[in-house]
């Protein structure tokens, strides 16, 4: 072998401690490697990553808000109109007059007692019967008083009135014939007798009373008093044509139904003007009911039908259902109505449907995940801080400090946590704490009751660590105690802390979910996986809407499982002794 070869050999071979030959792994790398070799731990890591993406990024990308309520249109049967056979008197006041409601009661009494006049509030009204259930209320204005003395009439005109001899003549004719009224120059005069006194009076129209209902053919038709009076009179007298205020009307009477249709006549043209009947039909809303509709209703009621079909304004046939209750008829139809979209089944718009408040469940799950994860992490951080500080102090100083801290640990450890959470939850309910503040309070409560386990572990570790040589070295170097504890002792506990923290994360998420499920944790409007499942307290929801509660439960299970897998993997990775 030449010298050259020898040199080559040396140069190509690697020394034993060469980095290329022995890949030295840092302790951290070793742990990572061991961790990644554990299949369950990797699965757990993947689960948690997916959960983070789902909750935090999914919440950002979700098209809906956490508390966005969805609505839908659905046809539900709603009241469209009501019909009733009218049994009450309808009052049509003359122009410029009002018939006070107090007088209406007197009027009914007068009708029942068949009196011709009644007094209400010092006003004397007279009742003129025009036909069957058709009256006129008038107020007489005396024109003149008549005193009959032994066959000789003496007329005394009322102040401000003109009493003409024509009136006198007409009166004499009428009184001779025993009539109660007479017409003169288009004015009707009445002979009013009260006791021995007789007076000639003009009637002032106050109101017209009947049980008929007037239905116009078009929405903007306004029927005045004169027409209504004339129309009713025509119905009573069965006059087929009449004229009011220069307009000619024609009537088509249906005696059997006691209803009539009126037409305006303008030359040869006959236009439908009004329908009069004793059935009142009113719309449930503000819409105008067409006369055709009303006629159809009348027909259906007459025939005893429970439903009828009619075209609406657009010519679409709509089916109406009639429900009868005594003399009341309700006409119902299916109407498009805006409803809160509760418990809608999974669809393209809502992949997991909507909940009882009409909110998108998938979106609520994302926001709920945020809250659950944030609560988990915050609580673990707080309880780790408390646990490390107290555990570290107890372990390092020993003696009475240790004794005191460990008794505190014992006390907190002894407090039954679940019942206490329930009590505190009820207290927060009583105090009506704002849902947002409640989340923070919840975190603090969970942390304050959760730290003893960590403190115990830290103390135990530090008790053994502080006897080791490197601690003697720190003491010899004169490093101050706080630095010795938190710079030299605590970092040695980090592996155990990580494991315990990861396991605790799962436990806290479970506790939070349980509390929220019981309605004592995170509250509406904030979502949490627990309070989404709360819906199953309604057995109907549990039975019929699986999509409301199963996904939330599975998410809790998978997330907690993920943390437990990771915690398990970490323990194995940090503590390889356990493996072999």
């Amino acid at each position, binding site marked *: 072998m030449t010298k050259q070869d020898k040199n080559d050999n040396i140069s190509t071979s690697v020394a034993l401690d060469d980095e290329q030959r022995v890949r030295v792994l840092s302790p951290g790398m070793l742990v990572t490697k061991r961790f990644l070799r554990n299949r369950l731990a990797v699965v757990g890591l993947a689960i948690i990553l997916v959960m983070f993406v789902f909750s935090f990024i999914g919440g950002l990308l979700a098209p809906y808000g956490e508390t966005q309520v969805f609505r839908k249109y659905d046809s539900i049967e709603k009241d469209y109109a009501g019909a009733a056979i009218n049994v009450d008197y309808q009052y049509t006041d003359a122009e410029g007059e009002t018939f006070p409601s107090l007088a209406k009661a007197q009027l009914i009494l007068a009708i029942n007692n068949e009196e011709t006049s009644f007094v209400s509030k010092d006003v004397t009204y007279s009742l003129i019967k025009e036909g069957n259930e058709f009256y006129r209320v008038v107020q007489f204005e005396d024109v003149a008083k008549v005193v009959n003395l032994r066959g000789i009439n003496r007329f005394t005109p009322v102040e401000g009135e003109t009493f003409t001899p024509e009136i006198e003549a007409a009166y004499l004719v009428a009184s001779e014939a025993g009539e109660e009224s007479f017409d003169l120059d288009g004015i009707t005069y009445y002979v009013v007798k009260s006791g021995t006194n007789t007076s000639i009076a003009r009637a002032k129209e106050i109101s017209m009373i009947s049980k008929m209902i007037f239905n116009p053919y078009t929405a903007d038709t306004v029927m005045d008093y004169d027409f209504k009076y004339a129309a009713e009179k025509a119905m009573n007298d069965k006059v087929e044509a009449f004229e009011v205020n220069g307009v000619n009307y024609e009537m088509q009477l249906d005696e059997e139904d006691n209803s009539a249709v009126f037409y305006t006549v303008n030359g040869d043209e006959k236009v439908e003007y009004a329908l009069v009947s004793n059935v009142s039909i009113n719309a449930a809303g503000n819409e105008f009911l067409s006369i055709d509709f009303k006629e159809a209703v009348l027909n259906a009621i007459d025939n005893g039908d429970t439903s009828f079909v009619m075209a609406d304004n657009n010519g679409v046939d709509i089916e109406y259902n009639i429900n009868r209750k005594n003399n009341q008829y309700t006409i119902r139809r299916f109407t498009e109505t805006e409803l809160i979209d509760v418990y809608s089944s999974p669809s393209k718009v809502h992949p997991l449907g909507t909940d009882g408040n009409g909110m998108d469940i998938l979106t609520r799950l994302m926001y709920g995940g945020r809250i659950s994860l944030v609560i988990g992490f915050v609580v673990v951080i707080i309880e780790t801080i408390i646990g490390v500080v107290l555990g570290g102090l107890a372990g390092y100083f020993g003696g009475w400090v240790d004794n005191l801290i460990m008794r505190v640990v014992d*006390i907190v450890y002894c407090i039954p946590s679940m019942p206490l959470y329930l009590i505190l939850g009820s207290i927060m309910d009583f105090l009506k704490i704002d849902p947002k503040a409640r989340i923070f309070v919840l975190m603090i409560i969970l942390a304050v009751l959760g730290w003893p386990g960590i403190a115990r572990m830290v103390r135990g570790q530090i008790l053994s660590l502080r006897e080791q040589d490197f601690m003697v070295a720190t003491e010899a170097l004169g490093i101050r105690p706080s630095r010795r504890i938190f710079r030299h002792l605590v970092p040695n506990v980090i592996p155990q802390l990580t494991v315990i923290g990861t396991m605790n994360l799962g436990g806290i998420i479970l506790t939070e979910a349980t509390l929220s499920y019981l309605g004592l944790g995170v509250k509406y409007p904030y979502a949490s996986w627990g309070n989404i499942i709360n819906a199953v307290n309604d057995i109907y929801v549990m039975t019929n809407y699986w999509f409301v509660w199963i996904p939330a439960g599975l998410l809790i299970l998978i997330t907690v499982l993920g943390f437990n897998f990771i915690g398990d993997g970490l323990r194995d990775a940090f503590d390889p002794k356990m493996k072999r």
Partner: protein
Amino acid sequence: MRKFVMRRLAISVVILFFVALIIYTIMRCMPSSFVENMAREKASLPGGKSYREWLAQLNESYGLDKGIVAGFVHWLRQAVVGNFGDSWAFNVPVTAKFKTVIFDSFVLGAISFILQILIAIPLGIVAARKQYSKADYAISVFALVGISLPSFFFATILKYIFSIKLGWFDLFGMIGRMYEQLSPFGKFLDRAQHLVLPVVTLVIVSIGSLMRYTRTNMLEVLNSDYIRTARAKGLSEKRVINYHAFRNTLIPVVTIIGGSLPGLFAGAMITETLFQIEGIGYTSYQALTTGDIPFSMFYLVFMAILTLLGNLIADILYAVVDPRVRVN
């Protein structure tokens, strides 16, 4: 040994005192209108005293008219002689209510505890013997799923499948509708049937920790020198596992089982509530949520005693079972 127990007992009493004080303070923070309601109810009875008089009397009898410390002393003095007062929610003495409900809780707890032991220990040992086998992974996953399952969710799933879909069990309650007409044996079966779902829930949810504990300890034992020695001696694998390894694994397992014995009386609050089993858990849930201070105080102190007792038993057992441990 006796000195050790005495010292632990003394410490336990001190701890218990502070636990009770803390709980009492929190309970008193409850702006409960329970007393006021009760006073109003009593005042409305014919011939009764006025509302104010009743309120004053009730407040006095529960020590609510005093400050928190004085009220606590009042409660403590009564509690020490076994008088926990009348439950507000149930209108009977607390101890009487406790006596009527504890048995069902105990039955439920005992059945699921025995089932847990019977399932968890063999499975834990199998998992440890065949570490990293498929069986080990399956058992580990099973145990962790059990730990991770929210009991309310699991109970709801069981109800959904077995009560609603299959109709095998009632949704909740302890007895069926026809209970009164059944023969004694029929009554027993009826009660047993109503316990199936709660027991399954409890077993699955709490089996995981014991299973993993057994596995970890078995692994530790299997790695120890005396097992290697036993194998080197040429003992059959069966004997090594069943005789040498198993017995040593039992030391920590028995300790932890002994420690959880008092827990049998603690009841399972969530599970009992979900299935409306009239045990201590469900009863105290009602008491806690309605602000029934006497019953809640009793229950919480009872729970604290159980915890302390469990720790004490575990420590004593640890020394008794394992002769290597010296009590100090």
